[in-house]
Structures are given as C-alpha cells and as structure tokens.
C-alpha cells in the first residue's frame, strides 16, 4: 500500500514541475546559476545512478564493472542507446557464464 503512496507523490511532484510554468509562470528562467545547475543535473544524476549501482545489479560485480567499461567505450565510439545497452547486456551474460 505504501508503494502506491510513493507512486502518487512521485507523479504529483513530477507533474507540478512540468505544469506550473506552462500554466502560471510563462516566463523564462533567467538566473544564471539556476540555468547552469539545471543544465548539469541530468548528466550528474545519470552518472551517479550508474556507478557503482551497475556492479550491484549483476550477480558478479566484476561482470557489472566490465559492462560499464565496455558501455563507455561503445558510447564513446558513437553507438546509439539500444546498441550500447545490448552490448552491456551481452558482456554480463557472457562473463557470468564463466564466473558464476
């Protein structure tokens, strides 16, 4: 039951963020600090979410770490969203076949 409360609070907060400027504020945010902060947030938060969590998501932390390295290389080489994630997935499946 608590999970539904969590989901409700999540949805309400996210919707308020999206809807308030469209309905009430209607002015661009000018504050340079706030603009810069909001520019960096997505990259920082995704990086923080990925590591070291990727090592705990797999049965063997080594497989997760390897998937991370290979994923970074693949993304650096210009592979798209789906190919990078499939490469990471394959890395774990192959490594854990031998490790676990």
């Amino acid at each position, binding site marked *: 039951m608590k*999970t*539904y*409360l*969590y*989901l409700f*609070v*999540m949805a309400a*907060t*996210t*919707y308020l*963020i*999206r*809807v*308030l*400027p*469209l*309905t009430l*504020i*209607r*002015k*661009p*945010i000018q504050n*340079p600090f706030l603009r*810069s*902060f*909001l*520019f*960096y*947030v*997505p*990259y*920082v*938060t*995704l*990086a*923080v*979410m*990925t*590591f070291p969590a*990727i090592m705990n*998501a797999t049965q063997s932390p080594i497989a997760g770490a390897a*998937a991370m390295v290979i*994923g*970074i290389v*693949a*993304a*650096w080489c*210009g592979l798209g*969203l*789906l*190919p*990078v*994630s*499939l*490469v*990471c997935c394959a*890395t*774990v499946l192959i490594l*854990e*076949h031998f490790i676990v």
Partner: protein
Amino acid sequence: MSKKHFLRGLRDGIPIGLGYFAVSFGIGISAHNAHLSIFQGFLLSFLNNASSGEYGGITIIAADSGLWAIALMMLVVNARYLLMSCALSQRLSPDTPLPWRLLIAYDLTDEIFGLAIAQPGYLEVWYYFGTMCAAMPGWSIGTVLGVLMGNLMPVWAVSGCSVMLFGMFLAIIIPVGKQNRIVLGCIGVSFLCSLLASVLPFTRELSEGMRILVLTIVISAAAAILFPHKEDDLVA
C-alpha cells in the same frame, strides 16, 4: 487541419516510442528488482514519463526512505523539465486553452520537447498530441514487459538485462561528455564520488536513493558555480 498536424506528430513520434520501449524495458527490470508489481510498474511509467526520475524513485521505494525523500528526488532529478516547460510556454499561442496546457505538461519529456521546439512558429497543439500518442504507449508497455519478463526470466538473464538501463544512461551522457569537457569532468567526478559515498563511513549508511539525491545537488551546484553554462540549449 488539426488532423493533418496530429498525423504528422504521430509519424514523428514513432521513432521516439520505439526508443522509449527499450529504455522503459530496463526501467521495468529495475522495478521488478525492487519488488514492484506489474500494475505498479505500469502506474510508475504511465504517470511519470521520466527515465532518471523513475529510476531515482525506484531506489527510494526499494529502501523505503520516505515520502519527503521521493518528492525531493523528483524535484531535483526532474527539475530540468521546469526549464523546458518555461521554454515551451513561450511557444504556445496565448489563447491556448488551459485543458490543453494541462495535457501538454503531462508528457513533457526531453525527446518530445526536442521535437516540439524544432517546429517553426507557435506550436501546433495537435502535432504535440500526435507525438504523445505515438510515444507514450512505448513507454508504458515497455515497463510492463520489463516487470513481466523480470518475473519470468531465469536469474542469469535478469542479471544481464539489469545492466541495460545503465547502458542507456551511459549512451546518453558519454556523447555529451565527448563534446563538452566540463560535462565529461562532471561525469568522472560523479562516478568517483558515487563510489566513495558507497564505501565511506556515514555516507554508506544512507540509502542509494539519498546518496543519488545529495550527490546530484552538490556536484551540479559546484559545477554551476565553477563553470557557469552560457549556451541556451537545455538538453545538451
């Protein structure tokens, strides 16, 4: 007239929907790992339409860190939508009725914002609704399928699929880091701080969600003070 715009939006939204499908499948696997049911996974995606926000929420739910924590997490991780919403409000005709504004806000995502802002002149709301109709099912169905497959697949397969979401996160941030050295520095610092926070005393006692929240605020604020971002582009 509105039908034409709607169909055009539908067409432009299809690639987004297909892309969403894969990402949200990863969200579904994470939701399964946090013991969410299929219906809860559906609600999660149907009501939020935000990948990092949903993953952040899952970490809070998994650790039962509290309702204030999840609200704060959404506020920080999804705060960029505040900027996008402001920007998009400038592109709506002033006589756009309130119900339509409420509907537009519902699926204001990075990708749909990108499409909408690329349209010349005032935004055709029916174009926007078309993109929503193409993109949203991919997001919700992908999540449901992720939770479902998480329940059905053997442990080794779930283990492999669990890294898919992280792979996509990497595919989002690394190309931007390649072009922008400050972003690349932020990514490196984030990896390092996140690792340290998970092993050092005190911070390691915090739940994963709280660590994500605190590190996101501290590192982004530090970067904003040290390296103010000048360009106007919001997404990259």
